[in-house]
């Protein structure tokens, strides 16, 4: 249709800070942009609609859009067709995104409500547009006011967005050249794969997978129109080899789960990101999108997978034998000594041993420690020097975040942790590398105690929790506080008076018996 010739502009840009508009239902949002209750996306065809939905679902969740969305095929007054999407507008940022995506899909976005819509904001009008004069839409038609033309659309039929998304045709995508095993992540099968096996192949596939010791679970599901049940298998972290074999067998389809209730065959892709369109798959059914068969299978209810060992039949006749007697006392030959040996393994220093001559330097360095490290640091004064531990203990707990004091103090000899609570000089380790828990057990440490090897040659010393002193408390002397002097205001405050009653005697009104001289007559006296 040719643009309607107009002698004056249909729309005028909204000014900054404008709060009242000619068009009904238009309001300014927090940024001052004129925004209506609804937005309308006008798209030229169904294909553009599909690419719009696909692009939107890639960026954001369709679940936000679908509850308020309607899809309509409309005829334009004067000829032509269009596909209209209407949905509620939440805020300006969301509408901005819709506008960008609709432009990408060769469409145009309008805002408004009811039956009248105006163009959304653009570079020339950053706060949007308002009608230059009020406009009335007719019955059953949508009036769209653009900068230079006016279009009237009449709806011919409506589409259900949920149904549309379920019926969309899958698009083929290439599989890696070397097969699925080359890049299972690309096919979406790295974590989990679903295998749909034709009824006749079910037993052979199960036997093969069982022999390969592939962990699996599955159940038989009857697909729409089939007489026999097909087998649906779930493989967690499947091996590449097994996937390659399965992918090449006719009658077996590998499906990649895209959300908790939908799976798409590998080599195919749904035009819409199903992970962001949960509400488009109603109920609790499982949807299998099959590309080669060009079908969508709806399984009744959520899949109830049964562990693989219940699916196969075992015909093994072997029995396990219990051990009768253990040979004791013959392990002496195995005994070795736990030794300290140099090691190139780098460890984070958990403590430093500072000689007493260097304590004066530590006093200066305390100012550099960040508050978390200073609060966690503990001190053990020994004859050999002052041991500064990075934290109270990391015995089986999560180590504190950030750098410890042991790493930050460039003084003394550093100690690293080989097992929880067992510290050895930096550049050494205990040999052989026994289990950390066993090491503590061998050293005879109680739960909160620590063992320190101060030098590679000396015996370890035991440090009890009560011997640890907080570093910050040890370095700071006592502080004294001055009492605050309270100043009272110079003048007394003016308050609100309180009525209190003195006792009234029996003769309180004595003397009021006669009229006061010269006074006016009391109210009510002498009337009538």
């Amino acid at each position, binding site marked *: 249709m040719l643009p309607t010739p107009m002698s004056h502009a249909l729309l005028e840009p909204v000014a900054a800070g404008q709060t009242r508009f000619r068009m009904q239902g238009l309001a300014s949002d927090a940024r001052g942009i004129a925004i209506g209750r609804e937005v309308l996306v006008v798209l030229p065809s169904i294909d553009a609609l599909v690419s719009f939905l696909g692009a939107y679902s890639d960026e954001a969740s369709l679940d936000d859009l679908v509850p308020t969305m309607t899809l309509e095929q409309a005829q334009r007054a004067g000829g032509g067709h269009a596909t209209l999407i209407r949905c509620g507008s939440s805020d300006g940022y969301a509408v901005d995104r819709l506008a960008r995506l609709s432009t990408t899909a060769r469409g145009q976005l309008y805002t408004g409500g009811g039956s009248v819509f105006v163009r959304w904001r653009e570079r020339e009008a950053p706060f949007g547009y308002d009608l230059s004069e009020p406009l009335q839409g007719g019955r059953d038609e949508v009036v769209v006011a653009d900068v230079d033309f006016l279009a009237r659309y009449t709806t011919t039929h409506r589409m259900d967005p949920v149904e549309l998304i379920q019926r969309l045709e899958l698009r083929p995508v290439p599989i890696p050249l070397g097969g699925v095993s080359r890049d299972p992540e690309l096919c979406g099968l790295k974590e989990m794969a679903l295998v749909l096996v034709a009824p006749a192949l079910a037993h052979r596939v199960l036997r093969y997978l069982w022999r390969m010791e592939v962990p699996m679970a599955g159940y038989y599901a009857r697909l729409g129109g089939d007489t026999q049940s097909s087998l649906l298998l779930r493989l967690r972290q499947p091996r590449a080899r097994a996937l390659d074999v399965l992918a090449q067998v006719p009658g077996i389809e590998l499906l990649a789960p895209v959300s908790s209730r939908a799976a798409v065959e590998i080599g195919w892709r749904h035009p819409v990101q199903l992970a962001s369109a949960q509400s488009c798959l109603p109920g609790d059914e499982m949807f299998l999108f099959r590309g080669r068969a060009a079908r969508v299978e709806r399984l009744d209810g959520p899949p109830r997978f049964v562990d693989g060992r219940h699916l196969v039949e075992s015909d093994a006749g072997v029995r396990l034998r219990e051990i009768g007697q253990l040979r004791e006392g013959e392990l002496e030959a195995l005994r070795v000594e736990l030794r300290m040996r140099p090691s190139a393994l780098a460890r984070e220093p958990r403590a430093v041993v500072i000689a007493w001559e260097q304590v004066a330097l530590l006093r200066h360095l305390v100012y550099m420690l960040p508050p978390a490290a200073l609060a966690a640091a503990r001190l053990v004064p020994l004859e050999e020097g002052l041991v500064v531990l990075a934290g109270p203990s990391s015995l089986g707990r999560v180590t504190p975040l950030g750098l410890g004091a042991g790493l930050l103090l460039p003084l003394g000899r550093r100690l690293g942790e080989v097992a929880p609570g067992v510290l050895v000089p930096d550049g050494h380790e205990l040999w052989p590398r026994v289990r950390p828990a066993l090491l503590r057990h061998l050293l005879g440490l109680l739960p909160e105690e620590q063992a320190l090897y101060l030098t590679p040659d000396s015996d370890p010393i035991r440090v009890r929790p009560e011997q640890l002193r907080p570093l910050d408390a040890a370095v700071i002397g006592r502080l004294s506080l001055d009492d605050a002097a309270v100043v009272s205001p110079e003048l007394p405050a003016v308050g609100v008076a309180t009525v209190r009653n*003195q006792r009234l005697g029996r003769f*309180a009104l004595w003397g*009021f018996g*006669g009229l006061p001289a010269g006074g006016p007559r*009391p109210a009510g006296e002498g009337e009538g």
Partner: protein
Amino acid sequence: MTDFVVPLLAGDDVWVGKPLRPSDRDDWAPALAGGSFSDVSFWRLRRGQLLTAVPELPDPDIDELGLWMGLHNLLVFEHPDRARVWARDITWRRLEGATRTLLTLPAPEDTPTLVARHLSVGAFVDVLRAEVVVSTAIGEIRIPALEAGRRFLRGANGAGREQSVPWLPQAHAPEVERLLDDALRASPLTCLLRPTLAPAGWSPLLAAKLLRQRAWARAVCHAWAIPKDWMRTGGAVMSALLPSLPIVPGPTSDLGSGATRALPEAGAQLALPGAVVPCDPRELGAVVGSLIHLHLLKVLELDTRVGLALGSREPGVLAFLALPLLLPQLSAELGEPVPALASDATSAPVVRRWTEYVDHLAELVPRSVVENLLASLVGRIVKPA
């Protein structure tokens, strides 16, 4: 003095005892002249400073002494021991008459007298009442507190606890209701500051000369702005102001020779409560300007939107809301509350908010109200062209 006046002004325990006779006033008046009550002078000054920094106050005179005595006697009518007094009803009515005599004072002629009256009456309307809450088998009962040596209450559990409640909003004896109006009439400034309490027939024009002084106009506007329902305050002022407008001099009021005037002459008694108060157009302008300033204060406080959304059909409130819409006509005389064009960045949002507020009022207030005011009020402030 020490039991009643000083505690009343300072905010302490006010003791109410035997009623005072009008003859006592004449006996005590000479003592006032000596200036021997330094406490009273000090607390009058302190209470005056609650309103302006340097209040100008006259020495207490015999009128003010009568006012204090009248206020004291007013409280006697609600004394818990009233039933014990041996007196006939006629005697109580005579006491009411005597109290009215004490409270009926001439209209204050100058500003210091206006302020001095308000000090006592303003403190009086805020006064609290000490009550004893006694719990009994049938629930809690409240009785006004008496001085030491409490009465034995049959069925009471324990001694009871004491509470202070605002005195004015409580239910009062009929004599007190009548005398309260007299007490408030004695102090036009109190009525101006608390227009919702004002008695029938009061007019803001009685205290309008105060509003021509900058410090007092500020004090009054801020006192109006304090209550949450400031629109009711403004509405009360407007509904008191409109019936008391003076006659416009000049040709507009002459409806042809020989025609009877719709309004009586200035100062004449009206059938309805509310006497026409003769006043300067500039004083009337000061009242209207202060009310418009109250709008501006609320715009600055961002307190307007909530209030206006409630909507009100009360004529006084509508007239009050219509006042900023009269600015095009009044600005020549009263000036503009905000400059027409913002000169700097700080005033720009204020000007914008004020413009939006006035536009909002224009949508809210019916056109007839504005036209009514244009006909009745504007002509009395601006000289007709």
